[in-house]
């Protein structure tokens, strides 16, 4: 659908849930003009309801044949959460810190709750932006052709002149990463910071990431770290590939979760609290090979042998992690995952 495709890889092993990406995005794009409730970038705790609440149960995406599926448009009141303020100006006069409303849901409502029983409970963080899919559900759902993929980089954008605010894109996106702006009566979404991309800069969320978990580059740039993680080592995987949209944000799955404790409180060697089946439900069957590769490369490095993959995941230099000024090569083809 586009000549080239920009992609982002996020290494979940290094996400500390600090929300710096969320704030970078919010201050850049969504703190005004009807976007206050939106989080184009959010970091949610998995397992968990996420944002908007229970988005994985709200439909959209495609079935196995490629037919768009029905979806639900979330409510600001019951699924996104209404932004609220605290009475910070009154606490010096002796008041207790309280929210101005009685909130019942919000973007980080179940932070760090996770799953499993103490002491073997577990969770990890999942940062989410628009996946700038190769077959976007939002684009497929729009009856007005108001959503398009930019030819030069595959960024998915809304033509606000054509958008009539029907919200079918919101029902169609299985990741619920396109939002309705009630002030403009139009849909808006993560724009992959395209004005920054055009200046050779990565999106604000990637630039500001404290844990340096985000890599940005073109899938066809074989020398780039994104292409190496996605195409060469195949350790970076799309979220919910079964939704059928061909997402272009890829995740290195959590491989070094804490070990389980036995009944005496001693860690069990070789155990992992995060069930493999849960990771498979998020990243598909390819997660097994990805984890195998990651562990093999880690063991290599532990044995004192060189590992390009481990070096790469250390994320030494922004200039290597963000490769934007490249030209399209001849004969590129995205490999298909098992």
């Amino acid at each position: 659908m586009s000549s080239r495709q920009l992609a982002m890889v996020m290494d979940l092993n290094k996400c500390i849930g600090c929300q710096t990406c969320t704030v970078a995005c919010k201050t850049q794009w969504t703190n005004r003009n009807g976007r206050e409730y939106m989080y184009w970038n959010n970091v949610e705790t998995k397992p968990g309801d996420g944002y908007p609440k229970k988005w994985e149960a709200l439909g959209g995406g495609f079935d196995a044949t490629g037919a768009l599926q029905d979806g639900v448009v979330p409510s600001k009141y019951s699924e996104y959460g209404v932004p609220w303020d605290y009475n910070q100006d009154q606490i010096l006069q002796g008041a207790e810190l309280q929210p101005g409303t009685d909130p019942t849901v919000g973007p980080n409502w179940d932070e760090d709750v996770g799953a499993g029983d103490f002491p073997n409970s577990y969770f990890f963080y999942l940062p989410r932006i628009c996946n700038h899919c190769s077959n976007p559900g939002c684009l497929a759902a729009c009856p007005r052709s108001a959503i398009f993929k930019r030819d030069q980089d595959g960024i998915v954008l809304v033509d606000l002149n054509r958008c009539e605010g029907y919200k079918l894109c919101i029902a169609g996106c299985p990741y619920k990463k396109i939002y309705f702006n009630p002030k403009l009566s139009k849909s808006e979404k993560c724009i992959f910071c395209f004005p920054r991309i055009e200046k050779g800069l990565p999106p604000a969320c990637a630039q500001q990431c404290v844990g340096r978990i985000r890599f940005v580059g073109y899938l066809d740039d074989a020398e780039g770290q994104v292409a190496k993680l996605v195409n060469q080592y195949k350790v970076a995987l799309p979220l919910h590939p079964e939704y059928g949209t061909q997402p272009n944000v890829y995740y290195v799955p959590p491989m070094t979760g804490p070990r389980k404790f036995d009944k005496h409180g001693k860690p069990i060697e070789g155990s992992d609290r995060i069930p493999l089946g849960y990771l498979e439900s998020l990243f598909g069957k390819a997660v097994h090979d990805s984890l195998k590769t990651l562990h093999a490369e880690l063991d290599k490095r532990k044995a004192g042998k060189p590992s390009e993959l481990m070096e790469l995941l250390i994320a030494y230099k922004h200039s290597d992690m963000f490769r934007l000024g490249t030209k399209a090569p001849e004969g590129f083809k995205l490999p298909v995952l098992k």
Partner: protein
Amino acid sequence: MRAALLLVLVGAGSARAGPASDAFLESETVTASPAQSVPTTPGDPLWMKAPVASFRVSAQRSVRLNDKRANELLGQPGFGEVRVRALASATELGVLLTWNDASRNVLPADDTNAYPDAAAIEIPSVFGAGHRLPYVGMGDVELPVRLYLQRKAPKGTQANEYVAAGFGSLTRVPRIQATMAMEYDEQLKLWRAVFVRPLQVEGHALTQSSLVPMAFAVWDGARSERGGYKQLSAWRFVLLPRPALDAAYVKYLSWGYAPGDLGDPAKGRAIAETVCIACHRLPGKTVASPGIAPDLFDIGAIASPIYLRESITNPNGVIIHAVNPNAHYSKASPPDKNGAYPNADAYQWSTTLPGGKIVSKMPPFTMFTPEQVGDLIAYLKTLDGTKEPEPR
């Protein structure tokens, strides 16, 4: 209505070409009363001087959209009808729509899944003797339409003027020349919506014929209606005081209104359920994959007999692009280099021949005898969207 209609007919007696014309004029038209000027407020008493016509509206079921909640509400009873009055001055035409609605819904100031009540009228770009009717769902490739849409906002209305040439092509016109207003009557639980526009605007005269084709759509915010989720009428006609009644146009439009024009619906049903169901979904007969062609659940409520006859025998005369060409991709085709699958061709309703000519995917059914076409249309006219709701 009768009295006003007769007045016009007396003035244009030659148009009374027979029972078909009479039946057509009686059921499909609303007579615009002459007025010094056309009021732009819905509550103006002058509107009550104009004769009223009641036109059926039914939930749009020709194309299926992807909002789960709105789809669940589709089967519930809608408004049923809109009542239409029209006034014409020397320079303007105005219509007043009224319809019963239990609740008033406005454009949400804040929420993300609430919808306003709204109303629209649609007028073909060209009409009159020698012109066929455009596809009622926002025109077609050959025959664009003009649309006037108002949505209820917290204060006043959000009014827009559009042109369209088929699904998805609705485009705002920068300069709005019509005056629109809608008001909710809390006591009677009904909406009144006024549309007033000059008879003559750049590129579009309403005086092309004495019969101005007009289709009506109303949206119920309480049913999550917006865009293609709407309740619409078939093409109806506003009878202007001037020019004289367009007899040739009436003759053309009124085919199918005389007893004997249409045939036996039972025979037509047999044809539809053996031939048409290959691509179109019919009540209780939904073997075709949704989206391959328009569904026919409500075709009788939105299409006139002459339109159906032309569509069956000459589909290339009415090219309609699929409402959403991207809603099905072909998993069987190889993806492109970035992993994107191409759109599935089966869900495109038209195809472009080498040389650029666009043709409909529907073949011309010229093998049917005129009697069979009459039977088929008699059956299709019974499909008003109320029977055997679409299975889920």
